[in-house]
């Protein structure tokens, strides 16, 4: 079973993402804050990370930077999921592997997760 780590400060989005992914055969690690994310990623070794951008404490951009410069975590596909405007432009300035704008379709979420966990 593929393991997906989802980090989003909005409890509603976190819960519904967890439900959708679990209903489709994925194991989900859900984090409401990015504070301890590096430790959790190293411990859980997920197959993929879905990361929100605007979060209190530590922002998605900074988390991406930290995870992508660490040799232990840099190869894990990391997708930024956010409601910010012009997400494509923002993400292109980071080393994230892709992005999914909110609000998303269930099909789009499952499509992107399948794409990055296939290999």
């Amino acid at each position, binding site marked *: 079973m593929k393991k997906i780590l989802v980090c989003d400060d*909005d409890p*509603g989005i976190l819960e*519904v993402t967890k439900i*959708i992914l679990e209903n489709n055969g994925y194991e989900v690690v859900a984090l409401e804050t990015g504070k301890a994310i590096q430790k959790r990623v190293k411990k859980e070794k997920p197959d993929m990370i879905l990361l929100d951008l605007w979060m209190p404490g530590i922002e998605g951009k900074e988390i991406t930077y930290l995870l992508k410069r660490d040799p232990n975590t840099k190869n894990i596909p990391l997708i930024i999921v*956010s409601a910010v*405007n012009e997400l494509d432009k923002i993400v292109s300035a980071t080393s994230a592997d892709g992005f999914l704008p909110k609000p998303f*379709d269930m099909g789009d979420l499952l499509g992107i997760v399948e794409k990055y966990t296939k290999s």
Partner: protein
Amino acid sequence: MNMVFSQEKKDRLNRLKRMEGKDNSDILSNFNDYISSGGADAAIYLLAAIVESSDDAILSKDLSGVITSWNSSAEKLYGYKRNEIIGRKVRVLYPPEKQAEFVEILKIIKGGGRVEHFDTVRMRKDGTRVEVSVSVSPILGPNGRMIGASSIARDITERKELDKRKDEFISVASHELKTPVTTIKAFNQVISSYLKDKNDPILRSYFEKMSDNVDRLVGLLNDLLDVSKIQSGKLELKMEKFDLDKLVKEIAFDLTNLDNSHKIIIKEGSGKKITADRYRVGQVLINLISNAIKYSPRSDKVYVSVRDLKDGVRVGVRDYGIGISLKDQKRIFERFFQVDNKIRESFSGLGLGLYISNEIVRRHGGEIGVKSTKGVGSTFSFILPFKSFK
């Protein structure tokens, strides 16, 4: 100003001085009387007083760019006193990174043109930068020959700061609105997929309606965001080469899937690829076809045609709906414009779709228009040049 005035002129001057404090329309109407009654000196005094009291930085320069006059607001804005700047080159106000602008402006002025409300940056005496809106116009001598140029600059620091705050607010507001919508939409889809296996068509149809309305809400939010981008000049186009015929077919297919009340019939095709922003052109097509469907409730067909022109391509969307009066046709591409209240009550919407479509087409260097007869139907068409530009 060293001028010697006759008693008569002094009287006129005193009357003028007494006018201070009245609004400009009084001053201007009297000003014309003074010129016609031979009060040229007084008129010069008045003009100088107007220039001096202006909140805008006003200066003049000769054809070689040497500053010849400088008002109080220019002193405040740029930090140079009048006596230290007159006689110096206007170029000192241009920061090193804007020196090319000087040559450009000079070229326009020497060609008899003018520069109006041009947002740029100038340099103060202490080297700091100031954001200004500049208008430069030629000054003509008595024989009609150009003898120099005037430059009017307005400090726009506050306006820019306000724009920045507005952009930040819109960005946060749209993020905050989209976040709960994401949860609603996703939970709705989860429930719909549970209901797929249950034999409860009524409940399923309720959730489909909810889903449609959440999508509508997202569409409205995106429209408001687009308007804000257009207004601040930040609607960027991502140009790519693509097959317009294919895009028309895809959109017709998607819209028929969403609402099968109308058959979308595609007539002709271009067969050529165009360079444009595919997403934005798609947005125009969706808007025009959706409107055609929405405003033709008693008809069941919408025709879409793609036709090659010499330098571009014309796309037409024809419906057999309620039509638009000639008076409304003139205003239909304005922001927030909707035809009369009766129609507003029958058809929902913010009245932004055509405004956004017009802006998108215009930014491509194209044109959009409508031909319509009330009660018969409408044809909206837009032209995109093959070589679209921003």
